[in-house]
């Protein structure tokens, strides 16, 4: 019977084309939007983790309270011991020190006179003082526009946009002017060894990147760090695990009243990322629900039209001895077949479109220039192909088609067999 129905669907274009187009379009949009949202949210979360939040972040309670001001005067001290302890307690995680700082960059000419200045956001992590994991994590090598990674003290990377603004070249020297952990003036000369573009608007506006040991030196933060970031296995964020670790860590300091005692915050508790993670998780369900509803309405109407057009066919089948329930079931089977065909087409198109967005992306760097948010936004929004994209579209595709047809097919039960002879005379 299924083969018989399939033949009918394939041969009767008016029975199949419109529903297949509707289902394909709905599935395509579901897959595309789902893949795109997953990609964008995933990128935002991933970039936030890499550049700012880690999967968990350890800092002093006082620092956490004033985190927006980058209060290095409230930073953790004795971080070697803290990191050592964290590595012992959570060996599966990678623990790294980070210092963020603000200040001014002054560009000096050959005579030592200032030829340009600009505010700068500083980020320091393990460039030459670590294992190289941070270089990989931050994708430094691929992000360098010209030059190389700092290999020794007092070398710095500077954002490419900023370098162009200040007319800086590789080998030029700049003076960092800021304040130390203790509130006194900090001066330090750095040699530019490369320029960098991360594709993250906040980082690309004007930043200087130095090794964490250099930052400790210039900011008088001996064995100190503003933040200790923890990254989970393969740098993939596991929500529940991060929550467990931070709860356990904080519980061990619960009785300590010191405002400089360390505290741990998971990624989702920072920068409004919890909303984004929850939204990211529910977006597919929202999309599927929406498309099931919208497509069901359209397909219900399409089914009604089809039912009208096939009024005579159903009459013949009733006369030949097919029960109403059986006709209704075959009508539903047809919906399943059409739903599967439409879902396959929609999924192929949707996944292709997501692949295109994954490779090419949508550049929103212009918009981000006007945006002031603590959230790390990638300047190119990309889709992401995930395994669920290959089946997610089948839910609205099949459900809407079957639901639409089941509603419209109810008319079969109202058909009077007594009038069949008359109806089939014409």
């Amino acid at each position, binding site marked *: 019977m299924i083969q018989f129905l399939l*033949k009918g669907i394939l041969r009767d274009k008016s029975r199949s084309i419109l529903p297949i187009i509707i289902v394909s379009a709905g599935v395509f949009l579901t897959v595309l939007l789902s893949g795109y949202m997953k990609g964008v949210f995933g990128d935002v979360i991933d970039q936030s983790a890499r550049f700012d939040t880690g999967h968990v972040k350890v800092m002093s309670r006082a620092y956490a309270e004033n985190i927006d001001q980058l209060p290095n005067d409230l930073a953790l001290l004795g971080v070697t011991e803290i990191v050592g302890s964290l590595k012992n307690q959570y060996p599966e995680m990678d623990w790294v020190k980070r210092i963020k700082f603000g200040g001014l960059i002054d560009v000096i000419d050959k005579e030592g006179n200032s030829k340009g200045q600009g505010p700068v956001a500083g980020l320091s992590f393990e460039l030459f003082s670590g294992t190289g994991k941070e270089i990989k994590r931050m994708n430094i090598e691929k992000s360098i526009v010209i030059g190389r990674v700092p290999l020794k003290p007092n070398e710095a990377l500077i954002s490419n946009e900023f370098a162009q603004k200040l007319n800086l070249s590789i080998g030029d020297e700049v003076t960092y002017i800021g304040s130390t952990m203790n509130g006194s003036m900090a001066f330090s000369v750095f040699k530019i060894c490369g320029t960098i573009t991360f594709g993250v608007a906040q980082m690309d506006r004007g930043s200087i990147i130095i090794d964490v040991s250099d930052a400790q030196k210039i900011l008088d933060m001996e064995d100190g760090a503003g933040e200790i970031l923890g990254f989970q296995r393969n740098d993939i964020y596991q929500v529940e695990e991060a929550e467990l670790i931070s709860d356990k860590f904080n519980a061990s300091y619960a009785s300590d009243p010191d405002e400089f005692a360390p505290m741990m915050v998971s990624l989702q508790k920072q920068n409004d990322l919890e909303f984004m993670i929850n939204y990211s998780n529910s977006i597919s369900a929202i999309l599927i629900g929406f498309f099931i509803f919208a497509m069901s309405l359209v397909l219900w109407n399409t089914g009604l039209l089809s039912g009208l057009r096939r009024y005579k066919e159903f009459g013949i089948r009733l*006369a*030949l001895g097919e029960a109403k329930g059986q006709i209704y079931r075959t009508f539903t089977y047809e919906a399943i077949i059409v739903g599967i065909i439409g879902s396959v087409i929609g999924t192929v198109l949707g996944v292709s479109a997501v692949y295109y967005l994954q490779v090419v992306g949508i550049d929103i760097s212009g918009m981000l220039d006007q945006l002031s948010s603590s959230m790390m936004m990638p300047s190119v929004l990309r889709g992401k192909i995930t395994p669920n994209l290959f089946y997610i579209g089948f839910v609205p595709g099949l459900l809407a088609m079957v639901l639409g047809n089941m509603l419209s097919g109810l008319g079969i039960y109202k058909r009077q067999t007594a009038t069949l*002879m008359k109806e089939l005379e*014409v």
Partner: protein
Amino acid sequence: MKSEVIITIENLTKRFPEGDSEFTALSKINLEFSRGEFAGVVGPSGSGKTTLLNIIGSLDKPTEGRVSVLSNDISKLSHKESAMLRNMHIGFIFQVYNLLPVYTVFENVEFALMLQKKSKSERTKSVMEALEWVGLQDIPNKKVTKLSGGEGQRVAIARAMVKKPELVIADEPTANLDAVNAHSILETMKNLNKEFNTTFLFSTHDEKVMSYLDRIIHLRDGKLESDEIIHHKITAK
């Protein structure tokens, strides 16, 4: 030897609601049909021909009286049981052939057997046999939309006969055919009637059909006017 009675109609009355009152389509009809009859119900428009065949074909139910078809009391059958009776034992041939347009000749005939859940091999054998009865064995894969009127009605006969029913109900089967095709179709039905001892019940006012019938039942205003056996008509064509 007395033939087996397969249809018994006793005091059949059928009324339809018409506004506030009722219209009587059939009134106190008493009839019997035996296995292998080639009979027709004749009468002007509105005489109750189609209503009678509808009830015999288990498409409708009597208002009063009893109709038994192949030992099934029509008024007591559920929708599903009525469908089963039609599916297993009754073939229908309509005025307009009412074939399923997207399917081929073979598939249209095969459909009747699919409803009986016959196996593929059984279906293929039976369909080819049925197409041979009606002379269409050479065009099983032809789309029914490409058939001539005569060919279309032959497919309809094959579809009705492929399941070897005990009863075939034909509603004005020659109304849309020219004389040559009409005679050819009637000849085919007559041969099948003889070969398989299938009961054929026609609703008609076509002289050509009447010339083939062994029994003619005249209805007028829902009442039985006459019921004649006419052996000689077979040779009169």
